[in-house]
């Protein structure tokens, strides 16, 4: 029973990780760059949301709307000002640029919000739970999982069937050829980054209602997102979702074996996947 509970909690935790991983999968799939500030941006959005909720007395749902919009705006600016200059075949400049920005962001947040852990008051919903057989399942984690599933489905459909999705896939396959057929790669890149950071707006609200955030948490969220993308298979949207589930279950089960082993178990599963199936669960050979 304890293990089944671990499995259920792990899937619910995976819902949160999926929200981190989707944006990363999208950005890597299109631009072949890893944005090292991915986790820090999520923390930044969360801290802004917490401060706004405290200042203006907003509920979690209004904060969510604001953060998603703010995330999209940050994504656009990030793309225009920094990423467009470093996107290219050489991965070093983009990695170093976002790495430097990540250090700057973390310490700027430390300066503004101090190292305290904070959380967002989610009202009654944060504690509500319902009973399934002998188990109690939280309402909030289920909302998180459903949101993650809807976001994944929506993003996957958008990439497959819309005009924007076709432009995105064309740019990912060959930027120059895509530009010849009338696609503007810079706007495609900007849209991809805006969507990726906007999704972090969801993650920011759920993370800060569910648990706590502090300025130094970003790198850990980055690593979880990264592991989910690799476990699931690079370039696949549903793969990132599945990878997040695997990671969530590994951590949750590991935590039940020994509280010090939870996060480590996730890392170890990642390394095992890398050893036996480097292309990921849904990746093609």
């Amino acid at each position: 029973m304890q293990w089944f509970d671990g499995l259920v909690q792990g899937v619910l935790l995976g819902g949160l990780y999926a929200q981190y991983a989707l944006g990363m999968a999208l950005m890597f799939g299109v631009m072949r760059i890893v944005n090292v500030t991915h986790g820090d941006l999520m923390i930044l959005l969360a801290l802004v949301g917490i401060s706004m909720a405290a200042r203006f007395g907003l509920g979690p749902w209004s904060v969510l709307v604001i953060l998603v919009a703010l995330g999209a705006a940050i994504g656009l600016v990030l793309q225009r000002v920094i990423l467009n200059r470093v996107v290219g075949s050489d991965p070093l400049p983009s990695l170093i640029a976002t790495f430097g920005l990540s250090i700057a962001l973390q310490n700027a947040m430390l300066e503004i919000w101090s190292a305290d852990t904070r959380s967002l008051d989610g009202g009654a919903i944060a504690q509500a739970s319902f009973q399934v057989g002998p188990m109690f399942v939280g309402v909030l984690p289920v909302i998180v999982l459903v949101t993650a599933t809807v976001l994944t489905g929506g993003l996957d459909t958008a990439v497959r069937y819309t005009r924007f999705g076709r432009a995105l896939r064309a740019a990912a396959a060959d930027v120059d050829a895509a530009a010849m057929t009338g696609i503007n790669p810079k706007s495609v890149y900007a849209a991809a980054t805006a969507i990726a950071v906007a999704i972090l707006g969801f993650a920011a609200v759920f993370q800060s209602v569910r648990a706590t955030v502090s300025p130094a948490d970003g790198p850990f969220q980055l690593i979880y997102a990264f592991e989910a993308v690799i476990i699931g298979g690079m370039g696949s949207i549903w793969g990132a979702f599945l990878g997040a589930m695997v990671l969530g279950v590994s951590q949750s089960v590991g935590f039940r074996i020994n509280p010090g082993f939870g996060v480590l178990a996730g890392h170890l599963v990642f390394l095992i996947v890398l050893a036996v199936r480097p292309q990921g669960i849904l990746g093609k050979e």
Partner: protein
Amino acid sequence: MVKEASIGAPLDVSEPAPRVQRQTLSGMIAMGISLCVLVVISSMPWWADQGLIRSVVEISCYVAVAQMWNLLAGYSGLVSVGQQAFIGVAAYAMFVLAQLWGLNPFLAVLLCLVAPAVLAVPTYGLLHRLDGPYFAIGTWVVAEVMRLATSTFGYVNAGAGMSLRVMTSYSAEQRAIGVSLLTALMLLVTVGGSFLLLRSRYGLALVALRDSPVAAASQGVNVGRMRFLVWISAAIGTGFAGAIYFMAHLRITPPAAYDPKWANVAIFIVMVGGLGSLEGVLIGTLIYFFADRWFGQFGAAYLVVLGLLTLFMALFARGGVWGLICRVVDAPWFPTRRKLLEDQP
């Protein structure tokens, strides 16, 4: 026709061996200064106070770690943000050898280098499947795994860390002599070794690899093997710095040993000093060290500036400070180029 000509040419004309200039005046001066610096560092116990020795050891460790990162990122295209894995594993191995197994600690600093080499093999085996930036974050995961695993490993006192109590059996002077000599040796191996490597045929292969892995492979460079060898060497060099650093500190804990700060420092030094040059590492280290001393008191605000400076360098000045200097004067300290001299008739 073409075939005949190419075979015939060496027979008909006895070509003089091409004359190649390898050394420059600036290079010879810098070589002399470097040797003096090594002698000065080795002789520190006889004239310097504890504080100065500590600072010099710290600077030297930064030089070594940054130079190893430079070899990876600047030449072989392997960007790592998890070099602290090798720092920590070597330092812990040294503490185990010296404190738990009772070996001579100065000997342990050399013997413990087996540990980063052993860790580097499976790490490369797993991570080389990842591409560019993903490789980098993969190295970070490995460092995190090492930190978490060490924190739960009771044999090395888990999260509470260890103290190098065996050092109390040596006098302060003996300790200073040991640390200074090891530091000089570390600089000789990491900087001097890199210099020799870059001047050798492997250096040519590395430069080719830096410019284009595909083209290098087509010229007969075994890209995978080169990268593997550089990865192992960099792990050992980084571990050497870690072992000396924590020997000087006498105390180790998992968060300190596997501190991501090491990767930040290496990246900052190399990016600001100049990627892909030995001179850049030395310039970058001096900038970092004095910036840290003077502005470190401003804490987070100072680190914001450091991060933004790294970002700025990556966006606008990829060659770093050394790249800017090179535009003005051509006087390499460590010449690794081969300059073909035209024969004057």
